[in-house]
């Protein structure tokens, strides 16, 4: 981000907030059903899973990594939980095993990036394929796993229940965001994550344990992805594992980047993720009410992302002297 000055600085975050507010105003004025309490709640609920995944992705990106396996991790670990529970395993044990699976995937990701030194983009891309292939071929019966065994337990309540009229999904988004924010701001590993993302070589020279930190980064991202998966599965009573091969991961990157988390690492915070999530939520909600086709929605979202990063590159220019080598 730009160094703060007394004048109003055009940071990407502020631009996005302004656009979000503008969209809110435009939609409220033009769309009848937009500004109702029910719609706003539905809006937030719809994007909360995207937001939680965005928090996980933000952790990876802030530490100068990226996790393209996040959707696969989410889908296969929770699908296995449902499969186990359908096969008669008690739900709490099934959850522990599913969480274990997710953490294991995160651990392998971290190991590949930190110790084998494969570029993060590539390691996580391949790990997504491996994780999907491994679980789907060896642990699951079908692509689509339904929530049958534990459909009347507290587990079902996680994604479909409400507290004081607020859907659990929204609350959990808030909780995950709060914990992640606290971790980044207050704890030592969180501060180190920024240091590492900002300049890994300098961080290592000053004694930051880079490799364990990368492990932690991907394991945490996988754990958060598991939470998102549980919420998603229990709100629709099923897991579609083929989501692992969809464009969803690009939407998550969109949410994170549009809010202002710098892809070069070390920049941005959870607040940026929330801003990005809200903007995409408002946009998608409005377009859905207007009956915009899905493919056109994709185009519009992409153009907005493009506009955001173009503006960012003009406001915070990089040139041949400041850009980092091997930065793709």
């Amino acid at each position: 981000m730009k160094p703060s000055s007394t004048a109003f600085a055009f940071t990407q975050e502020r631009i996005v907030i302004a656009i979000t507010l503008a969209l809110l105003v435009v939609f409220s004025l033009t769309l009848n059903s937009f500004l109702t309490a029910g719609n706003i709640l539905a809006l937030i609920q719809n994007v909360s899973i995207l937001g939680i995944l965005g928090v996980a992705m933000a952790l990876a990106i802030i530490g100068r990594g990226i996790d393209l396996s996040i959707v696969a991790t989410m889908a296969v670990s929770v699908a296995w939980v449902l499969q186990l529970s359908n096969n008669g395993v008690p739900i709490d044990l099934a959850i522990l095993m599913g969480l274990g699976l997710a953490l294991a995937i995160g651990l392998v990701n971290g190991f590949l990036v930190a110790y084998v030194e494969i570029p993060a983009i590539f390691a996580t891309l391949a790990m997504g394929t491996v994780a999907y292939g491994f679980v789907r071929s060896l642990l699951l019966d079908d692509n689509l796993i339904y929530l049958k065994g534990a459909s009347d337990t507290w587990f079902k309540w996680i994604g479909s229940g409400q507290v004081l009229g607020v859907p659990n999904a929204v609350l959990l988004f808030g909780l995950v965001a709060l914990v992640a924010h606290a971790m980044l701001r207050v704890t030592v590993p969180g501060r180190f994550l920024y240091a590492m993302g900002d300049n890994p070589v300098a961080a290592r020279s000053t004694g930051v344990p880079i490799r364990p930190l990368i492990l932690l980064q991907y394991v945490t991202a996988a754990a958060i992805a598991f939470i998102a998966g549980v919420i998603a599965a229990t709100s629709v009573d099923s897991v579609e594992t083929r989501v692992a091969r969809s464009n969803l991961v690009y939407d998550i990157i969109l949410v994170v980047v549009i809010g202002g988390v710098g892809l070069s690492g070390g920049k941005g915070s959870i607040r940026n993720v929330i801003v990005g999530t809200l903007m995409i939520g408002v946009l998608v909600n409005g377009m859905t009410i207007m009956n915009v086709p899905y493919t056109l929605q994709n185009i519009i979202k992409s153009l907005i992302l493009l506009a955001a990063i173009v503006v960012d590159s003009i406001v915070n220019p990089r040139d041949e002297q400041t850009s980092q080598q091997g930065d793709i």
Partner: protein
Amino acid sequence: MRETLTRLRYRLVPDHVLGEILAKNWIDNAIPFVILVLTLAVFGVLIPGLLTLGGLSGLAPQFGELLLVVLGMTIVMLGGGIDLSVGSVFALANFVTLALFNMLGWPILLVIPIALACGAAVGLVNGILVGYLRLRAFLTTLVTLIIVRSVVDMLILAYAVKVARPVTRSAIWDFISFKHVLGLPVSLVAALVVAIAGHVFLTRLRPGWHILAVGGSRRSAYNAGLPVRRTIAMTYVVSGTLAAAAGIFYASRLNAAGSDTGFGMEVLALTAAVVGGNSLGGGRGSVFKALLGSIIVLIVSNSLIRLSLPTGGSSLVLGLVLLAAVAIDVKWLKNRGKVLSRVYVSPTYMKLGASPATGEHSGSPYALNDRLRDVELIGLGEIEGPEDPILDAEGNLYSGTRQCDIIRFLAPDHKRKEVFVHIGGHPLGMAFDRNGNLVTCVAGMGVYSIGPDRKATKLSDQTNRSWFSVIDDSRMRLADDLDIAPDGRIFFSEATIRFDMSEWMVDALEARGNGRIICFDPRTSSTRTVISNLRFPNGICMARDGQSFFFAETWGCSISRYWFDGPKRGRREVVIPDLPGYPDNINRASDGGYWLALVGMRTPAFDMALRKPAFRKRMVERVAPDAWLFPNMNYGCVVKFDEAGRITDCLWDRRGTNHPMITSMREDRGWLYLGGVSNNRIGRYRIPGADPEWTAAASYRGDKP
């Protein structure tokens, strides 16, 4: 007995070849090649018929399409970027081709350029965004991937049925679709042509080098004045065009447009490029690597489909293969340098003859004295590394420096100095030719001639490549000293072909004949190697018969004479077999003899180490370079010998303060000028009884002895 075995072992086994092979650029292809062989072996066994002609020709059309896309991806990656939009561009070109040809019935010769232009246009958008606006390649091309994919999906939704029904026929289209050239489908032939063109482009043409330079270090390329932004933008245009070409071939093959056309192609292409060994982040890679990677990926992905594994099984295997291949590649790239530095230095056996005595009262011709005690010093602290000072007809003193200049100290007192010419490399040996041009050997560059007008011209920087040398020895790494024959031919020594100037001493640890003597003939401007396999050939001086020259082999501690003309032409004789030190430059003396600098003195310890190559190998592998046992280079002397090789004079600086290391000396008008490659001064010694009129130029003209 044991020593004989050691000698034979080191004579017969060429240890140095391993390091030289590891130093080659093409060795990077070894890992993908092994992976390819393994892939073929594993799937060849698992799937009977895969490796037959029928099995492979079934893959050929797909291979052509994939290869085109991977080539585009490789070029972008070499420039330091990534292009994820290739899959969508592929689908777009497929759709455009079918829509224009099948639905609208346009002539195919118009359709193909339009489809290619569509791809190039998407590439141009990417290129402008990434190259000129400097957005992040990954994110930007991801966005264009989604946008173009969505556009294609919308178009397919509206026109899918119509585009699949051809309204016209075209002989050209049928040729592209069904015919084979030399048994290969047209798409594959096209892809191979593009591959060859791409190889030539990347390795032989300036814009191709620019791409590699930008990918290798964007900042350095920018500072060097390369058009960084244009170069990057161009890589995306190339990639888009090639992906479109692949899409056109796909259209001709399947004649259908679906929403899954080209889906996941970007991952496949990225996988192929990386598995082949092209590094993410740029600068390293080649067309051949792209080719290897494409074959591997195609065989793996197709074999997995044919193995009919349970759902997800093929993803699992593909992912694991990918991870393993990349992990090996990454570790290889990282550790290659370490392995190389361990194995590159490869000592061999050498036994020197007994070292003559140098004691003060030993009666030896090399006996120690202190005659250099009171030399006058020129340019003290003002020059660094005067390897071989020389004087012109007016008495001006010239000397090369470590800062890559030739400095001139003006006659008569040599107090004032000026930079005569900046040459760009450390000038070592020097000689004036008959026209007053200063000819000099420049380390790492070759032989240059500098006219009185200070204009430097390159005479020679490459010679004939020897047939069985692994190292490309056609380039000159360390041209050292030279002299000019009466007919104008320049004979010069290249001390070693295995080490650069900065590590010339390491060559001593090998004691192998790594050096050679080369002849440049100005009449034909040709350069030929005259004698090879010399142990650090150093000083060269024409004998007075005009048909031969003396040369010193530093690590061989010997002086030899070689006849290049006359009845003894081609003969080589050792003149002084065993010196007490390491000889450097040789120059003529006024009494008909030759001055010789001993740059360092032999020690019993190092002489013994030379007979124990295994010891030196262990030392190089296990001990830090600072602690290696090197030959003594801290103390030397100047001797004079006659044509028969008898030592007739000897000059020492006993305290070793003025001239501890002497690499050269020149006699001129009764004075002897002393230089040293590590010294910060030039010494001047009055030779008692020398002819005050004698100059080297007069001697070479034949006016003086």
